[in-house]
């Protein structure tokens, strides 16, 4: 691009040289803007993956993620897990789980678990400055509580699918650490994810022969959901455990307990079905006037005054911020068959509801900070223009205007709404637990047009856990 200065009244060679330097600066600003434009944020990075999942092609979704992560195979982790790649690995872990690639899924969950935790712990003042000046997406990712709790909860399923109680216990302990952190440091004591986490952790400890630990987790799980299928196992455990609670005691009754599994020559099957996908975040762009109306209560008075002034001047100024897209599949009715007969599932957790509830808590703050950034952008632009407007040279004034617009434009382009989130979480998870005669059984789990047919051998007194994640 060539910026012509001819005809703007510059006839002194000294001025010409000086202004040529400024023109070069201007060109550089424009070039820098061009470099910065075109960043679509996290939602653009995952578009191919979501499209593939919508089409019922999870392998294509993994291929899209591998391409984005710059790795050659499902087993390879990216060289750099310190940035937002950790979220993509988390997405890949969920999809690997849906493909019954439980070992690979565990490896991805564990790598992402540590990376997400590290990102969370590493947040510092520079993240806040980046978020204040440029964009919310400029800071390190901070996982919301439900994501932190679901990493270990879903990975427990991977270990239980492989009959690995040792691995499942480790995940249960990690869940307990995170649960304590969420309750004590984030002051969230009633996160519904704990209903599913408690159920799986309780089952893990029950089958490990640790009745007290099992009841402690079941007690937590029962606080969120009735779990009819848990009544008899909990009553049986309560007879041999010293753990007591009013909730556990309330399950007891005069009806006799079923015979122990070994004596009745039976085993147990736990079925877990996750279906649909939670709402992901998308970029939103609204005029300043509308943003001021929608989020009036969340905006600081000084920013509101500055923004109102702009709106009153009739300036078309836009505010970029993320919002939640529609979730999908939450109203599906999944089905499970054991040896051709239907078994009823119970809802364990509505993950989409957790996502929406968490979003409602922070949405106002996010829009308020987007408005703050817009005010900062305009101030920067106005400052540059003011520095040149008194100059007698028209050329300098034009350059000042261009530099001002360039700075505002570039900062606006940098202001990518933070659309980062774990997008491949199931919208809902349903579970059931049934006793079956020891031996071979045929299972069929189905939801959202995705099915898993599995033959399993249930040993006498033993157990099996089978899951389906229909992420469409």
């Amino acid at each position, binding site marked *: 691009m060539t910026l012509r200065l001819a005809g703007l009244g510059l006839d002194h060679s000294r001025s010409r040289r*000086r*202004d040529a*330097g*400024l023109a070069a*600066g*201007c060109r*550089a*600003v424009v070039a*820098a*803007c061009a*470099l*910065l434009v075109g960043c679509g944020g996290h939602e653009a990075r995952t578009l191919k993956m979501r499209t593939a999942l919508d089409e019922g092609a999870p392998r294509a979704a993994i291929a899209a993620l591998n391409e984005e992560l710059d790795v050659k195979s499902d087993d390879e982790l990216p*060289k750099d897990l310190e940035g937002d790649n950790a979220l993509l690995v988390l997405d890949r872990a969920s999809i690997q789980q849906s493909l019954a690639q439980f070992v690979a899924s565990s490896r991805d969950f*564990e790598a992402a678990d*540590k990376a997400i*935790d*590290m990102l969370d*712990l590493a947040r510092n003042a520079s993240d806040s400055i*980046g978020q204040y*000046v*440029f964009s919310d997406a*400029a800071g390190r990712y901070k996982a919301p509580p439900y994501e932190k709790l679901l990493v270990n909860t879903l990975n427990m399923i991977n270990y239980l699918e492989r*009959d690995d109680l*040792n*691995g499942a*216990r*480790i995940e249960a*302990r*990690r869940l*307990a*650490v*995170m649960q*304590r*952190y969420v309750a004590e*440091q984030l002051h969230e004591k009633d996160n519904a994810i704990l209903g599913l986490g408690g159920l799986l952790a309780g089952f893990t400890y029950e089958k490990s*022969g640790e009745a007290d630990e099992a009841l402690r987790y079941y007690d937590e799980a029962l606080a969120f959901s009735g779990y009819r299928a848990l009544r008899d196992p909990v009553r049986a455990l309560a007879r041999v455990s010293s753990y007591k609670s009013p909730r556990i005691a309330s399950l007891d009754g005069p009806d006799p307990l079923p015979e122990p599994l070994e004596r009745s020559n039976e085993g147990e099957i736990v079925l877990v079905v996750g279906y649909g996908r939670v709402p992901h975040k998308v970029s939103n762009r609204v005029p300043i006037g509308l943003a001021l109306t929608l989020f009036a209560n969340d905006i600081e008075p000084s920013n509101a005054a500055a923004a109102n002034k702009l709106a009153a001047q009739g300036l078309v100024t836009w505010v970029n911020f993320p919002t939640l897209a529609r979730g999908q599949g939450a109203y599906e009715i999944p089905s499970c068959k054991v040896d051709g007969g239907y078994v009823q599932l119970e809802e364990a957790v509505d993950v989409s509801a957790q996502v929406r509830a968490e979003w409602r808590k922070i949405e106002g703050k996010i829009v308020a900070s987007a408005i703050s950034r817009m005010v900062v952008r305009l101030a*920067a632009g106005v*400052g*540059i223009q003011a*520095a*040149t407007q*008194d*100059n007698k*040279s028209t050329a*300098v004034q034009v*350059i*000042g205007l261009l*530099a001002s617009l*360039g*700075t505002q434009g*570039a*900062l606006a382009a*940098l202001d990518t709404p933070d659309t980062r989130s774990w997008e491949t979480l199931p919208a809902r998870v349903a579970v059931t637990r049934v006793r079956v005669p020891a031996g071979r059984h045929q299972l069929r789990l189905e939801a959202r047009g995705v099915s898993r047919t599995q033959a399993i*051998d249930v*040993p006498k007194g*033993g157990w099996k856990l089978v899951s389906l994640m229909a992420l469409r």
Partner: protein
Amino acid sequence: MNARLGTIVPFALLTLLSASAVGCGHKEYVRDSHDPSIDNAAMSTGIDKDDIQRMLSENLNNLRNAPIMDLWRSHKGADTVAIFPFQNATSEHIDSQLGAVLSEAETWLVESGVVTMISRERQNQMIAEVEGSQHPVFNPAHAAQYGRQLGAKYFITGKVEASDERTDDARRVQYFFFMQVIEVETSAIRWQHKAYITKAVR
């Protein structure tokens, strides 16, 4: 005025470019014999070579001077000893590292020459026989049974527990590593010792 503009334009440039200036660097493979410092850094809250060496050195130095070692020395290698997997009761996936701890301890005992160690391959066969082929996984509750079937007089086992805590800006894992020698016939604990290791992210 132009001077002011001259300072503002570079400033605007700097602001813009700083956002896109991501540090570029390249990685290389290194070997400890060329750069011994590569073993120094803690890379995670799991356990590494340095932790294993410190835990084992504390426990095995204690075992070296324990009465059971004097008894074994007096029997001139006639006592047969099996070594069973260490239980991972922590919140970290450190099973492969515990396998390394087991091998190090086994090597130390073989090199000491005071006992006859039973091969771990035979132990795995025995575990499969006791637990059944469907779930041939070591069960600590059956350790004495494995020992009897292996013809071992003693077995060595251990356990790692952890206290894992998380705050807004730190995560700390305190490991407690226990080792013990158990007499198969009586299930009596003939020796036990502990070592502590702490890892943290802060």
